[in-house]
């Protein structure tokens, strides 16, 4: 009998081609959860600068708001009008936008799908925009920093002051990077993704293969907030972390601040609830890039992590 072959991975070539190059002007859309780990923003901006790009930011942007629909607290028109208002702010700088948050990423792409939902929704949103002096924007594309850095991965290798040689990493993509209402937003194969493995592999990391790679972190968008006991949320996190722990990685690398917040803070809760200790540091991809670029400690602000990241930072040889 033939040996079982791994499932073939498919990449969306059209989307890959559309991802900006490092030389292109980009707007950087900043998310609310990133405020809890300021190094995510700081490292992205400063690493881009080191590679010759200055991302444009603006204090005219609001929160993305798309996920208010999933909070069951907002009318569709509110969410779509706020999204369009943010598109107006983005478009002043560029039609290419980059975000470091899966929530913002999926919020924009879900809204792009809802704009096409019919029932006169576009006309109603246009009417709202008129009242605040804005127009309906159709050509802004929101990319994830994981996509942007993947496309520009050769530059990362060139500019990194260290490699990840000998560093074991477990990768977590997060649901709202992999799954979208708008299929045009899917770059990688959602059943068998590999861009992060390729990107980190290029920096010589040892990637651990673990069974629950595609499982949710447990935060479940608002699942953590819906139930006071958080038990279902914690059970998923426990399952995920137990699967990772078997391979004893130096760190988990995520691309979403909310997954980071949950995987980082839930480890203490799991100790109380299940008497189980994990002690696995969790880093956002851009924080890791910042470490590899030796960005200063005041930019990275790694002390805010609940599970200390010192050991992996030292192993990499960080000299910021």
């Amino acid at each position, binding site marked *: 009998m033939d040996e079982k072959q791994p499932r073939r991975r498919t990449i969306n070539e059209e989307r890959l081609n559309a991802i900006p190059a490092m030389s292109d002007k980009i707007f950087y859309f900043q998310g609310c959860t990133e405020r809890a780990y300021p190094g995510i923003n700081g490292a992205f901006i400063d690493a881009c600068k080191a590679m010759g790009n200055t991302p444009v930011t603006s204090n005219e*942007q*609001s929160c993305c708001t798309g996920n208010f629909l*999933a*909070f*069951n607290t907002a009318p569709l028109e509110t969410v779509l009008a706020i999204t369009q208002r943010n598109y107006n702010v983005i478009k002043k700088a560029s039609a290419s936008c980059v975000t470091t948050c899966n929530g913002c990423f999926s919020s924009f792409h879900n809204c792009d799908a809802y704009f096409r939902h019919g029932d006169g929704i576009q006309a109603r949103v246009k009417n709202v925009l008129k009242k605040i002096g804005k127009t309906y924007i159709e050509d802004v594309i929101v990319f994830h920093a994981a996509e942007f850095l993947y496309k520009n991965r050769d530059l990362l290798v060139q500019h990194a002051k260290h490699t990840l040689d000998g560093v074991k990493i477990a990768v977590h993509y997060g649901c709202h990077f992999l799954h979208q209402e708008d299929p045009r937003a899917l770059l990688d194969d959602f059943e068998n993704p590999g861009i992060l493995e390729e990107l980190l592999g290029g920096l010589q990391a040892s990637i651990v293969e673990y069974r629950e790679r*595609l499982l949710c972190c447990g935060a479940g968008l608002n699942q953590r*907030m819906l139930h006071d006991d958080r038990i279902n949320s914690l059970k998923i996190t426990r399952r995920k972390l137990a699967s990772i722990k078997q391979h004893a990685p130096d760190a988990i690398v995520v691309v979403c601040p909310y997954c980071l917040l949950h995987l980082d803070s839930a480890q203490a809760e799991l100790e109380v609830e299940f008497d189980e200790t994990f002690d696995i540091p969790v880093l956002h991809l851009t924080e890791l890039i910042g470490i590899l670029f030796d960005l200063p400690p005041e930019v990275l602000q790694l002390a805010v992590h609940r599970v200390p990241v010192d050991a992996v930072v030292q192993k990499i040889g960080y000299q910021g």
Partner: protein
Amino acid sequence: MTADKTRKEEGATSLLNAINQHPLAGNDYLACIQCGRCVGSCPAAKVSEKFNMRVINQRIIENDTTLLADETIWDCFYCQSCVNLCPRDNIDSYKTILILRDLALDQGHGLQHMKNILPIMRWYIEKGVLTDGPSWMEPRALDEVRKINEITGLNERVHGLEQKLRKASAAKE
């Protein structure tokens, strides 16, 4: 005919009608082939005894209005994995749960689940951002966001849910 069955059939039209009147309606529940791919990938199904998207689709087809009061609709993780895995183009279970929860809240079910969410919505209404710290928005831009919130009915919706939650909590005590 049992009382339970009668209740289901009476509610039937109203549940499907209500779902179909939602701004995100468009699912064709009869297109479900009950393949179960949605359940196989579902985090909620791994930890909740009752959550099963295939069964929820079936209950919608059967017009089972008891679904709106069923706590299981609050177990979904909104991960959207079922959306991309479903072999049919016209079923989006993410939207199904979103609509069912909206309808449940309209009927006064599940309000306790809004307890931790509504204060966050207040941050947004006041500051345009979801943070307990100060807003990063410049005042003129924040005014635009506040205007959108007002004219699209966000403030009214949040205020209404806050009042319903207060009433439900008082009645419980």
